[in-house]
């Protein structure tokens, strides 16, 4: 178990998301930055899809109620263990009574805190993700607050006591690659030109539902209203004011604004780490290229697992089978 001493700005339980119910109007939710979430999970040896905590800008203070292994990846929010700075992107053993906290944000927006065994809140519709708007999943369907106690699951894998490649989210201007469509034909040449050549600033009205941008308005041919259809993660919606909105994890599954493009999956983690004031540029790539980039990225993530597996052995002594973990003595 872990106890929340302070919830920070917005800390929620998230996994990969609630799939299979978009057709019923149910939001997917899930980790905004799936790459950092997966990295933290793999570092502690969790099975894919175990729930972790997503902390936003100001991290939580957490007291451990039992010995465990944890790892933090994503934004650098100033991770500390018992008041002393410790590294992100690597697994740490910790004892009951230890305190995890965050001093101050250095870069990025969202940090993922994974514990060995995962956050074992009951799944709702097949997912432990918190859907803040519908008030379901996670811990009582809401953000974490002081006094909350969360159960940890039984550890199934072996933690990887190494260091995963750290991502840097500090660049002030980020290039997000996009695949054009499905409604890019609704925009004028000038509108498409503005979108692909302009620079857009992230506004404070950004949240888990959408990252709202401000810059040169993207001009439509005949308005931005379309007959309502599906919205994908990373869809770039252009409402009537012409200012792009990146539709993120808590987006509604359908909507009625034209979508000029979709941020590629490999660059969605970068989008998830944007904070107000950051600037973005868009660059068009083909769908085929986007998919190759995603597959390459997934392969890199799988390597964390491969290295983790290397420290585990199965030996047979006198006919008895033993699983042995090899890890550094602390």
């Amino acid at each position, binding site marked *: 178990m872990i106890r929340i001493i302070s919830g920070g700005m917005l800390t929620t339980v998230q996994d990969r998301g609630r799939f299979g119910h*978009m057709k019923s*109007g149910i939001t997917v939710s899930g980790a905004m930055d799936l790459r950092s979430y997966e990295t933290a999970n793999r570092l502690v040896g969790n099975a894919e899809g175990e729930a972790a905590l997503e902390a936003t800008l100001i991290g939580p203070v957490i007291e451990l109620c039992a010995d465990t292994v944890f790892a933090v990846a994503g934004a650098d929010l100033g991770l500390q263990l018992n008041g002393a700075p410790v590294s992100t992107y690597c697994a740490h053993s910790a004892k009951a009574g230890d305190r995890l906290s965050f001093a101050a944000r250095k870069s990025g927006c969202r940090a993922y805190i994974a514990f060995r065994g995962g956050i074992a809140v009951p799944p709702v519709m097949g997912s432990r993700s918190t859907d803040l708007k519908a008030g379901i999943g996670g811990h009582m369907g809401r953000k974490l607050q002081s006094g909350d106690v969360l159960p940890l699951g039984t550890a199934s894998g072996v933690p990887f006591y190494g260091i995963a490649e750290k991502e840097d989210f500090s660049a002030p201007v980020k290039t997000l690659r996009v695949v054009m469509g499905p409604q890019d034909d609704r925009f004028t040449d000038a509108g498409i030109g503005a979108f692909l050549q302009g620079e857009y600033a992230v506004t404070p009205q950004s949240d888990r539902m959408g990252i709202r941008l401000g810059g040169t308005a993207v001009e439509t041919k005949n308005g931005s209203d379309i007959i309502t259809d599906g919205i994908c993660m990373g869809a770039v919606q252009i409402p009537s004011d012409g200012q792009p909105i990146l539709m993120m994890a808590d987006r509604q599954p359908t909507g009625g604004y034209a979508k000029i493009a979709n941020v590629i*999956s490999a660059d969605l983690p970068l989008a998830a780490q944007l904070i107000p004031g950051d600037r973005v540029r868009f660059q068009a790539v083909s769908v085929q290229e986007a998919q190759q980039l995603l597959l390459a990225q997934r392969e890199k993530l799988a390597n964390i697992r491969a290295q983790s597996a290397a420290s585990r052995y199965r030996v047979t002594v006198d006919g008895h089978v033993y699983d042995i973990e090899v890890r550094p003595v602390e």
Partner: protein
Amino acid sequence: MTKMEIAKLKVSGDSAILVEFENRIAPEINRLVRSFTMALAGKNIPGIVEIVPSYRAVTVHYDPSFILFDALRKALKDVLAHLDEAEIPPATVWEIPVLYGGEEGPDLSFVAHHSGRSEEDVIRIHSSAEYLVYMLGFTPGFPYLGGMDAAIAAPRLKAPRLKIPAGSVGIAGQQTGIYPIASPGGWQLIGRTPVKLYDPMRAEPVLVQAGDYIKFTAVDAAEYARIAAEAEKGSYRCRTWRKEG
């Protein structure tokens, strides 16, 4: 033109393809959406994560680790080419009991006044049609219904209510609908159903599917209370039948 020729396949990022039929809202277009959705689901193509039907399009979400764009596009074209031969079961009609007027339908008198009819007439007209569920969205389980008689159309409220109780049945312009969860809204409320259209803890969290039909039926306060008690226990089952034609 064949069905395949009127469908357009559009890139919707690297993990979805939008299959778009004619760009208008009409029952015959939505029927194509339903047929395609069912035919595609029946194929069990590995890598398809979710199929989301809407008014005139279907969003096919997929995982590029299992199937890439070019292969999926080909598979979708194949399903479209054989859509005429696909056996699609008739749609389900759901009977939704409604207590009209009173506290449950505070705007019934406005709608009656606006349409120049009696409240009884509004109830009779509203509960006589079978409404097509074009799609679900907006909130969990919110059905976008089509087919309401223009005679009982009414404008939205000038100032939306901050909280509308779950189960409220309303009219906005020529649309009618049900609020599955308590939410803000500007529709004219004419009644309320005790049926839970959405319950996250139920095995099937949302009752009605896109392509189904809803038929409202008027009940009195005693019947409403009886159904509400059953719905609370999870034992109430709506009457359903197969849509004819």
